[in-house]
């Protein structure tokens, strides 16, 4: 299954209402849609062109990330790029009717290939790594290299924050926050390990962050307050 079909609906406070008129399609985008909706040879050729476009985007993403993935060989990266292009193609063909022309068709298509490639690369990078899920509360910040300077404000903020992580968050929120925000586990890797989606995990992270911010504000502390005291 492609990544794009497994991302849950956003639950965070998206307060935006969008009522723009449907944009007029540019000629190139219109031609992409027409040929992809055609039949026979014309359709097959359009699908082939689209796959080539997606493969180019996926290879671009692999090349961008290659320095961070020294253990992957060129063949591995090309396999990942091809899988990403294949999965992106399936997603795009299934969602063709949802393209409204808010961008050019090629820009819209690229994002599917980049997403598929990025997720595959993140998962490959963590393939044999253990995902730390159970935080040791008392050493949370020390293990993540977070230490206050001499300032009383920083020490108080960190103490309060550490207490809030332990006491205010639910066990699931704590586990997700610590993995994503402290231990640097990529959200797609954690989603795979917990059998959930990026969207669902981000909602949990968002709710945890909101709880922590509220708690700090109740205590008269916040990141912004700390910055103002510099």
């Amino acid at each position, binding site marked *: 299954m492609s990544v794009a079909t497994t991302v849950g609906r956003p639950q965070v406070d998206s307060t935006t209402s969008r009522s723009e008129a449907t944009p007029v399609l540019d000629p190139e985008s219109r031609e992409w849609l027409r040929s992809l909706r055609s039949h026979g040879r014309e359709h097959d050729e359009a699908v082939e062109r689209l796959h080539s476009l997606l493969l180019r985007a996926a290879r671009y993403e692999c090349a961008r990330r290659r320095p961070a993935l020294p253990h992957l060989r060129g063949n591995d990266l090309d396999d990942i790029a091809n899988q990403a292009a294949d999965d992106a193609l399936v997603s795009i063909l299934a969602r063709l009717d949802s393209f409204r022309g808010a961008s050019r068709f090629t820009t819209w298509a690229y994002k599917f290939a980049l*997403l598929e490639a990025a997720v595959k690369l993140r998962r490959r990078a963590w393939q044999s790594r253990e995902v730390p899920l159970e935080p040791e509360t008392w050493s949370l910040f020390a293990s993540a290299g977070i230490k206050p300077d001499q300032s009383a404000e920083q020490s108080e903020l960190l103490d309060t924050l550490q207490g809030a992580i332990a006491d205010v968050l639910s066990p699931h929120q704590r586990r997700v926050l610590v993995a994503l925000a402290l231990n640097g586990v990529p959200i797609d890797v954690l989603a795979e390990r917990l059998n959930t989606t990026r969207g669902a995990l981000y909602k949990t992270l968002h709710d945890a962050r909101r709880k922590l911010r509220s708690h700090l504000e109740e205590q008269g502390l916040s990141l912004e307050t700390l910055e103002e005291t510099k």
Partner: protein
Amino acid sequence: MTERPDLKQALGRLLGPAGPEVGCDECFEQLDRYVELELAGADADAAIPGLRAHLVGCPACREEHESLRALVGGEQAL
């Protein structure tokens, strides 16, 4: 007093963006339009509120935004 950059970044990762933000799905939905607005020099943040904040709070979506912007921007520059 000078705040250590790593501490500030770590607190930013823990507490996330302060303002309203869209979720990952909405970000993906709007990303192509957002990038084209940015590359056209338009006010993408005004057109799609909450997306910039999400990019600050979500490293994965931020990386994909950077890639799409670089890819499309590079093509436009040719």
